[in-house]
């Protein structure tokens, strides 16, 4: 039951963009310095994130990446779905996968876990994480 490094780093990179002041585009280098994720990895991550409309890239000296939407409109699930192949704990929860699904007693367990996860994935927004981040950085300083 693990979230891949890709998923974890994507969340970190987007949170980094979300807390940056003035919503100015941030260069890959600046994001890398703050998050500790390598330039090359960030470049890779921003391709699917851009494609899914979560970030916008801009060129030029002042160029870089910025969030494409308000942080309250980006859920943690949106970010993970952009980079992970599947967020379902087992393939059969979506249905139509296995001929045993009507009689399978274990599928109820998987369905329950799946909907509990979905609920959190959709309800936690980037804006919630900004609040936690601000709280934590206040304590550190």
């Amino acid at each position, binding site marked *: 039951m693990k979230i891949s490094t890709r998923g974890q780093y994507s969340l970190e990179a987007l949170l980094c963009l979300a807390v940056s002041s003035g919503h100015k585009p941030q260069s890959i280098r600046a994001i890398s310095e703050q998050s500790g994720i390598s330039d090359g990895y960030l470049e890779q991550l921003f391709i699917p994130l851009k494609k899914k409309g979560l970030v916008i890239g801009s060129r030029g000296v002042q160029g870089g990446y910025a969030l494409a939407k308000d942080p309250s409109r980006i859920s943690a699930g949106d970010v993970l779905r952009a980079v992970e192949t599947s967020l379902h*704990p087992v393939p059969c929860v979506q249905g139509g996968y296995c001929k045993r699904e009507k009689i399978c007693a274990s599928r*109820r367990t998987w369905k329950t876990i799946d909907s*509990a996860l979905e609920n959190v994935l959709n309800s936690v927004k980037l804006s919630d994480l900004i609040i936690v981040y601000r709280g934590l950085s206040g304590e550190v300083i």
Partner: protein
Amino acid sequence: MKISTKGRYGIRFLIDVAEQGAGALCTLSDIAKRESISEAYLEQVAVVLKRSGYIRSVKGSSGGFILAKDPSEVRIGEVLRNLEGDLSVVEAPLPGKKESLFRQAIRVGFYNKLDNAVNESLGSFTLGSLICGEKSKTEYMYYI
């Protein structure tokens, strides 16, 4: 965010044995046939289930596996942890390694919530509750 085949097959193994009724002995080949899972794989799963105290093996020509506990006492969350190891969605921070504030914030605001959701949703299930599920008779007959 995956539960491996080991976890899934382990649960099916226990459900299958429990469905045969109290005290029923099941051979690996019976379970393998009913569940359409390879016998070799089931054997590996059986090792873990036996070690964790969910099943016992009975030797001899009429031997097989038998549930070691009443199905109502077998908690599904606990079985999964025995089969899969830790169920949390990300690894715990390495001791002595400082995590970025971004990561810490996501851990507090998101990963911990996912873990709690998984734990809470699993808490309600026992092997007993799964085998008394809402299985309609017609569906059951159809697959026999």
